[in-house]
């Protein structure tokens, strides 16, 4: 599969090391909405390399695709430095998606840790657009510090919506922060939801996802209603290079979104 080369249309600095880049959707998978929430593209920086990047935009806006990149390695740094009109190679979209259709009629908890809000944002857009079809919807978002919070203005705008419960916390903060400080699970008791009728979508560091799923289970949410987004080393994204294996699953095509009851035994084991 060869990449398509598209021009960067917009570049948004989210935090000190996180950038969102926007490319036009033309030339990618056709049909109504070029991607499903939770999917990713393989982005290629010319001559440097290719990495999986979550699609973080609105699936209903069919003309553009947003990717939120954390610059931690040579490839992601090169992607984060792309300017308007520079070319980026794109393959995709790949992977499984958040169960936004299956969650109709339920209360929905969207729980994000750090950059994990990026692959969840498309799900939130969808949930808000189709608001009447869902019960209560809550966003719980935790990050390391206020400087690491993504999409701050958008999150603030969401906080003002009466139809959405929003709770934000950070691990530690300076005086400027007047919000909560502590881990994401601390906010669960403050959120209104019926555990027996709730679907939860969690994305963040693996440790955070495990603790959050455990807290949800303690609260009465069954593991077949909890969804996590897994991450592994990827080279091909089409199930042929073998790198992304997670037990018998290929994260690139059986995931990255997994129903928790199907992977919780694997997650309990070390070095799988």
């Amino acid at each position, binding site marked *: *599969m*060869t*990449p398509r*080369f598209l021009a960067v249309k917009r570049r948004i600095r989210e935090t000190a090391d996180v950038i969102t880049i926007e490319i036009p959707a033309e030339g990618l998978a056709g049909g109504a909405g070029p991607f499903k929430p939770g999917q990713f593209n393989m982005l*290629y920086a*010319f*001559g*440097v*390399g*290719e990495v999986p990047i979550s699609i973080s935009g609105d699936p209903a806006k069919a003309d553009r695709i947003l990717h939120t990149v954390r610059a*931690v*390695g040579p490839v992601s740094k090169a992607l984060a430095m792309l300017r308007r*009109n*520079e*070319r980026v*190679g794109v393959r995709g979209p790949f992977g*499984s998606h958040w*169960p936004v259709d*299956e*969650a109709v*009629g339920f209360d929905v908890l969207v729980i994000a840790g750090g950059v994990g809000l990026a692959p969840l944002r498309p799900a939130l857009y969808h949930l808000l657009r189709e608001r009447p079809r869902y019960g209560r919807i809550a966003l719980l978002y935790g990050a390391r510090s206020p400087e690491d919070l993504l999409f701050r203005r958008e999150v603030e705008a969401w906080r003002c919506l009466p139809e959405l419960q929003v709770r934000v916390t950070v691990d530690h903060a300076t005086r400027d922060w007047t919000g909560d400080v502590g881990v994401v699970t601390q906010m669960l008791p403050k959120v209104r939801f019926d555990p027996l009728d709730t*679907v939860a979508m969690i994305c963040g560091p693996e440790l955070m996802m495990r603790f959050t799923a455990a807290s949800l289970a303690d609260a009465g949410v069954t593991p*077949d*209603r909890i969804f996590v987004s897994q*991450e*592994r*080393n990827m*080279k*091909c994204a*089409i*199930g*042929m*290079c*073998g*790198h992304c*294996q997670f*037990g*018998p*699953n*290929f994260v690139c*095509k*059986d*995931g990255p*979104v*997994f*129903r928790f*009851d*199907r*992977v919780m035994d694997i997650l309990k*084991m*070390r*070095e*799988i």
Partner: protein
Amino acid sequence: MIRSDAEFSPGYRRGGHPSLFGRSPCRLGPVLTDRRRSFGDRALEEERITETKSRAAILQREGLQQLIDLLRGRGYCVVGPTVRDQAIVYDEINGLGDLPAGWTDRQDPGTYRLVRRDDEALFGYVVGPHSWKKYLHPARLRLWRAERRGGEVRILDDAEPAPKMAFLGVRSCEIHAILIQDKVFLGADFRDEDYARRRENAMIIAVNCGEAGGTCFCTSMGTGPEVASGHDLALTELLGEGGHRFLVEAGSEAGERLLEGVRHDKPVEADLAMARAAVEKAKAQMGRSLDTTGIKELLQGNQDHPRWDEVAARCLTCGNCTMVCPTCFCTTVEDTSDLDGSHAERWRRWDSCFTLDFSYIHGGSIRHSSKSRYRQWMTHKLAHWIDQFGTSGCVGCGRCITWCPVGIDITEEAAAIRSGDAGSRRRG
């Protein structure tokens, strides 16, 4: 309500039966059974027009040279076994003179030696460190190259035509390995087009094993020793009374056509009996076995078995097993560019799950210890593969046992885990 399995990621999928001759999702799969049927129909027709031809034929020793010449004349690069660096490897061959006449191999855990036979058999050995994946799934492949000019980037369209190759001397276990890789690369969702082209252009001249190798266990895996299907021609080497000759059977129309191009005779009962005896001898000599009963659940359910620590103390994570295994398919990519950044290339090369950075994500590798990496390889090969592709990943060729520098034996490891099965202790 939440829909069940259909929509969501399958996790542990329903296990498949390890046999290969079931439903195959790959495009080449159904063709195999079709070949047999069409061959049968054509045989009936031909009987009316020409003189009677039985399905099997006898090829004299010179006939095999004729076959090689015929293939080369038709534009095939013929590759087959040849002696190099004190091993039998696969390389281009021009004629019978390149084959390892009179050689056999002595294989044991961590040991491979070539030894003279007391006859001049051309195929009197089993398998060496090479496998046919060398040609179908090359160790280095340029995926594409691109040029950046004036702000635009374009892919340069210069895909090489796939070479036409004739594989001479393919063993039954190796055919099964190719079929297994077909499922990986010719799947329903994505296809490796380079593999597909090479595969379509490949002619398979198989050879039935007349003896078992020192580390073979194909009978346990249902992959031999007799070639059953997937071949264009299958040869059984016969020596002694009647002269040096081959019993040949065509497995496809292409094989049929090939056979028609060389001098061949009808076999007599003695030929057929000798051929059967050779295969029986190979079966009887099998020195190892691997009990595949419930092996998927056994390995997936025993990831904390103490045996993994035991084998980890021996395993060097050198990755030899993955290099010689005919079904291992992991690869990595290398992205390169020239000095002024105007050209870029992407290359694919073989990789191994034993390397430390195979499972690297920011911060570190998921599988850091050698224990976790050995466990991954063996569990994938014998268990996860069934969930992923519907068959076992192992064909019982014994290469991993022979070429492991410390002689780790996959059949021994599987048996050790079975004898201390945590699940059976709970169930007992």
